[in-house]
């Protein structure tokens, strides 16, 4: 099996783990070519080369940003994708049941391949989530007013048109935060069912009913579909897998079984999808 390892030298733990990871892979009998990247976009170029060089497996040694770069190339390609997480949050790794860099190495050795769903927006894929902030806090102008008066909080009105087989929904709400994921919120596991339900899961945190009560939490709406259009307030920042990636309005679809990803075989691992609880 021909493997290409793409190592992000700028990842949080890169300096400390580079030699350790190489040694561990060597001890496991996992050979391959190593390529190092240090800038956004380089990983995507290197992964593109893998398509022309009969590479069977591409392994990302880095964080969510680099993974997002690589999946743009590997979606719907006959190449396995492995992850050794050494980034800040490692959301994607947690989703597929990889809780540490060692766990990632083990998955390369003994794991199984699952065809997982991805999300798709503006011709770009995402794995973990898309987040849109609809809440804006503006401080009062002036030296005294800015310190003594309460900041003005506004919630942008948004319209979401959601489609699913048999369902068609039109949603209107003043949004605090909108999160869209190809995986169920609060779900656990890296099973075929969890990673391939072929639906987008949408969580809408909307304006609290009583704005004067500090203890009031945003209202939560949870729906699902396979296609959604977000309109209403334009120009709101979209974060895909934690990276700034465009502005509203946007159309988001599910890309079913788009990525052949290596997951650990150990079913007792307890990965978590904490997207819903991240606020």
């Amino acid at each position, binding site marked *: 099996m021909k493997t290409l390892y793409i190592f992000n030298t700028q990842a949080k733990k890169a300096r400390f783990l580079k030699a350790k990871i190489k040694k561990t892979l060597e001890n496991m009998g996992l050979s391959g070519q190593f390529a190092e990247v240090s800038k956004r976009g380089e990983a995507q170029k290197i992964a593109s080369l893998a398509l022309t060089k009969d590479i069977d497996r591409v392994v990302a040694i880095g964080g969510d940003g680099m993974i997002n770069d690589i999946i743009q190339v590997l979606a719907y390609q006959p190449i396995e994708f492995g992850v050794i997480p050494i980034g800040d949050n490692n959301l994607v790794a947690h989703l597929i049941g990889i809780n540490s860099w060692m766990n990632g190495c083990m998955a390369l050795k003994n794991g199984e391949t699952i065809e997982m769903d991805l999300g798709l927006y503006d011709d770009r894929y995402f794995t973990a989530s898309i987040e849109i902030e609809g809440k804006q806090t503006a401080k009062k102008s002036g030296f005294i007013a800015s310190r003594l008066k309460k900041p003005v909080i506004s919630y942008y009105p948004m319209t979401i048109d959601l489609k699913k087989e048999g369902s068609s*929904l039109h949603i*209107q*709400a003043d949004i605090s935060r909108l999160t869209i994921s190809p995986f169920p919120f609060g779900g656990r596991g890296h099973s075929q069912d969890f990673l391939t339900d072929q639906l987008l899961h949408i969580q809408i945190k909307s304006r609290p009913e009583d704005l004067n009560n500090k203890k009031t939490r945003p*209202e939560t709406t*949870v*729906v699902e579909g396979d296609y959604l259009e977000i309109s209403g307030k334009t120009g709101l920042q979209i974060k895909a897998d934690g990276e700034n990636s465009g502005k509203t309005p946007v159309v988001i679809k599910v890309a079913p079984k788009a990525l052949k990803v290596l997951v650990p075989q150990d079913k007792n691992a307890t990965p978590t999808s904490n997207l819903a609880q991240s606020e």
Partner: protein
Amino acid sequence: MALIKKRELQANVTHAETIVGAGVALSGKLEAKHNIQINGSFSGEIMAEGDVVVGTDGEVNAPIHAKNATIAGIVNGDVNVVNELDILSTGKVNGNISAKILSVKPGGIFSGSSIMHGKIEDQSIVKPTYET
């Protein structure tokens, strides 16, 4: 008593996979294989293979088809359930209903005609009913 009712309702909420929060307006056709909880407003049609719960702040202007339904808010539309329909003390249903078991708590309002269908398979479920 009110506290117990609130707890009962909250217990149902935790099992809902589709939730419409208060202040959110939905319209269209909602089909789900699981449970639905509505605390905001909805108009169109609801078809659930699981249970439907309309919370105290919920307002539904739509026919509801579900396995079971608990109404603590307002429903303007027909309610067809396979098993049990519970109208709680804060609930109001303006429409015809079809169910195996109908339970209207004191204070709950039901305005329409009802069809009680089928046998009650589990005889241990005996609930008091109130005429309105």
